[in-house]
C-alpha cells in the first residue's frame, strides 16, 4: 500500500516517467513518418537535377533553385501540350467554385426540409442517399456518362459540376440534417406561428444560425472536389482536365527525361490548395470529417 506518513500536498511525480517517455517516443516517431513526405517534396523541388542524381533524397538542397517551380507552373509537358500546370489550376478553380456553391446550397435546403418539413417518404430517400454514398462510383459511372451525353454537356465543365453536386449530396445532407436537428425546434415553430414561410425561415433564421456548419461543408467540398481525379478524367474533357489529372500526366508521362524536381514542384502546387485550406481551417476540417462518421 502506497501510504506515506509524511505525505502532504500534491503527489510527487516527475514529468519523465518511463511510460511518458515511451508515449512521446512513439508519437514523435509517428510524426516524423507523417512529415517525411512533405519534407522530401519541398527539398526535392528546390534542388537542381544534378544534385538529385547524387542520390541523397533526405539532404537539404545545397543550392536552392526555384526553376522547377517556374517550369512546373508554366512549361511542363502534360501529354501533348507543354503549358505547365497553370491551365489545370484554373480548370480546377472553375470546377471547384461552382460545384461547391451548388452542392452546399442544395444539400443545406435538403437537410432543412428533412428536419423541419418532413414529407411522406423523406426518411426513405435519406436512408437510400446514405447507403448510396457507399456504392462504388464505378457502378454509376457509365449511366451518368450517357445521361450527361443526352444533356449535351458531356466533356464540359457543366458535367463535372453536376457529378460533384450529385456525389457530394450524401455527406453534406447528413451534415446539414444533423446540424439543423440540433437547433431548438421552438425557434422554427415560433417563426411559423409568426407566419414565416419555407424560404423566409430558411434564409432569415436557419442560415444565419448555421454559418459554422456552412464553413465545415465548404471546407469539405473544396478539398474533396479539388482532390478528385476520376470524375475529372471521365467527364471534363481534355480541355478542362483539372489539376490532379494534369499532374498525373506530367509525372507519369513516359517520354523525355524524368525531372524529379519539376515533378515534386508540380505535386506541391497541386497539394497547395487543400493544404492551405487544411492548415487555415484547423479544427473545422476535423469537425467536418468527424461529423460525417457520427450516426444519422
Amino acid at each position, binding site marked *: 500500500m502506497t501510504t506515506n506518513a509524511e505525505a502532504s500536498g500534491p503527489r510527487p511525480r516527475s514529468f519523465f516517467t518511463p511510460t511518458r517517455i515511451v*508515449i512521446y517516443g*512513439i508519437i514523435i516517431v*509517428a*510524426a516524423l513518418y*507523417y512529415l*517525411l*513526405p512533405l519534407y*522530401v*517534396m519541398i527539398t526535392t523541388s528546390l534542388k537542381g537535377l544534378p544534385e538529385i*542524381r547524387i*542520390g*541523397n*533524397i*533526405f539532404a537539404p538542397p545545397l543550392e536552392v533553385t526555384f526553376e522547377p517551380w517556374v517550369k512546373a507552373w508554366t512549361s511542363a509537358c502534360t501529354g501533348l501540350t507543354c503549358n505547365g500546370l497553370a491551365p489545370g489550376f484554373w480548370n480546377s478553380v472553375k470546377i471547384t467554385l461552382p460545384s461547391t456553391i451548388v452542392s452546399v446550397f442544395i444539400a443545406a*435546403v435538403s437537410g*432543412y*426540409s*428533412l428536419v423541419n*418539413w418532413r*414529407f411522406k417518404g423523406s426518411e426513405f*430517400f435519406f436512408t*437510400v*442517399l446514405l*447507403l*448510396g454514398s*457507399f*456504392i*462504388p462510383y464505378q457502378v*454509376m*459511372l*457509365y449511366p*451518368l456518362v*450517357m445521361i450527361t451525353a443526352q444533356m449535351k454537356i458531356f466533356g464540359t465543365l457543366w458535367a463535372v459540376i453536376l457529378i460533384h453536386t450529385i456525389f457530394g*449530396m450524401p455527406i453534406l445532407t447528413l451534415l446539414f440534417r444533423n446540424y439543423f436537428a440540433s437547433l431548438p425546434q421552438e425557434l422554427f415553430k415560433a417563426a411559423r406561428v409568426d407566419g414565416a*414561410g*419555407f*424560404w423566409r425561415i*430558411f434564409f432569415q433564421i436557419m442560415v444565419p444560425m448555421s454559418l459554422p456548419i456552412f464553413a465545415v461543408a465548404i471546407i469539405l467540398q473544396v478539398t474533396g472536389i479539388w*482532390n478528385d*481525379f476520376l470524375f475529372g478524367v*471521365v467527364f471534363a474533357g481534355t480541355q478542362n482536365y483539372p489539376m490532379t489529372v494534369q*499532374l*498525373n500526366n506530367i509525372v*507519369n508521362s513516359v517520354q523525355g527525361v524524368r525531372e*524529379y524536381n519539376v*515533378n*515534386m514542384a508540380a505535386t506541391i502546387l*497541386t*497539394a497547395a490548395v*487543400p493544404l492551405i*485550406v487544411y*492548415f487555415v481551417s484547423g479544427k473545422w*476540417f476535423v469537425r467536418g*470529417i*468527424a461529423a*460525417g*462518421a*457520427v*450516426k*444519422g
Partner: protein
Amino acid sequence: MTEAQSLHGATALERTRPPGLLYNLFVRNISAKLAASPMVAIVLVVFIGCTLWTIWFSFTDSRALPNGAFVGFDQYERLFATRRWRISATNLLTYGIFSLVFTMVVGFVLAVLMDQRIRFEDGFRTIFLYPFALSGIVTGLVWQWIMNPTLGLQSTMRGLGWTNFTFDWITNTDMVLYALLIAGLWHGTGFVMVLMLAGLRSVDGEIWKAARVDGIPTWRTYLQIVLPMMRGVIVTTLVIVGSGIVRTYDLVVALTNGGPGLSSEVPAKYVINYMFSAGNLGQALSASTVMLLTVFVLLIPWVIVEFGPKKHT
C-alpha cells in the same frame, strides 16, 4: 378553447379544402417539396436508377455501346476466368485486409496515445491528419518518388554505407502491394485516429473515475471497458474505411499504374479500363456489380448497428 372545440374546428377547416391524395401529394408544403426535389431526383435517378441500369446491362454482351443481347451470367463467368480480374480481386483482398487491420489498429493506438494529456496535442493531430487532406494522386506521386529504387530511399541508404540495403518494393512484383500499403496508411490513419479520439472523448468521465476506484489498470480500462463502449464508432469507421478501400483507384494510378506487370491492378481500375479503353462494357459492368456486392456485404454490420432494433434481454 376546449379540446373538443378545437377538434371540431379542425374538421370544419378540413372540409373547406379537398383533403385528397392529389392535394397531399402536390399542394401541401409545396415549397418544401420543391426544395427537396433535387435530393429525391438524385436518389431515384442516380443511386437507384443508375445502379439498376448497371446491374441489368451486366447481363448483356455489350461491347462499346450498351446495346448487347441478354446473356445471363456469361459476363460473370468470363470475368472470373480472366487472369487480370483474378489478380485484381486477390490484390484487393490482400491489400484490403492489411490496410483495414493496420489503419484501425494504428489509428486506435495513436488516438489512445493522443488521449494521454500530451503537450502540443493540436500540433500532433495536425501532423497526423494532413495527408488525409491530400489527393490519392499527390500521395501516390510522393511515395513513388521516395520509394524510387535508383534515387530514393534505397540509394540514399546505400550512399550512407549500407550497400546491401534494399527497398525496391515498388518495382518488386511480390512486394508492390506493401508499397501501396505504406502510402495508403500514410494517407488514411490520421482520419481513423480523429474518429477514434472523438469516440474516446465521448466516454463519460465518471466511467474512468469508477475504474480508478476499482483499481483497474489503464490498459485494461481501454481494452475491456472503453473499447466495447465505442462499438458504434468502430463499426462506422470500419465501414467507411472498408468501402474506401474497395474504391481504391487514384492511389494505384499514381503510384504504380497497376505495375509492375499486373501485380498491383485493382478492380476499380479494371472497370475503368474495360469501360473506356478496352470497349468491353459487359465486362466493366459485371466487374462493377461485383464491387457493389462486396460493399453491400461490408455494409451489413453497419446497417445492423445503425438501423437494427435495440436489443432487449
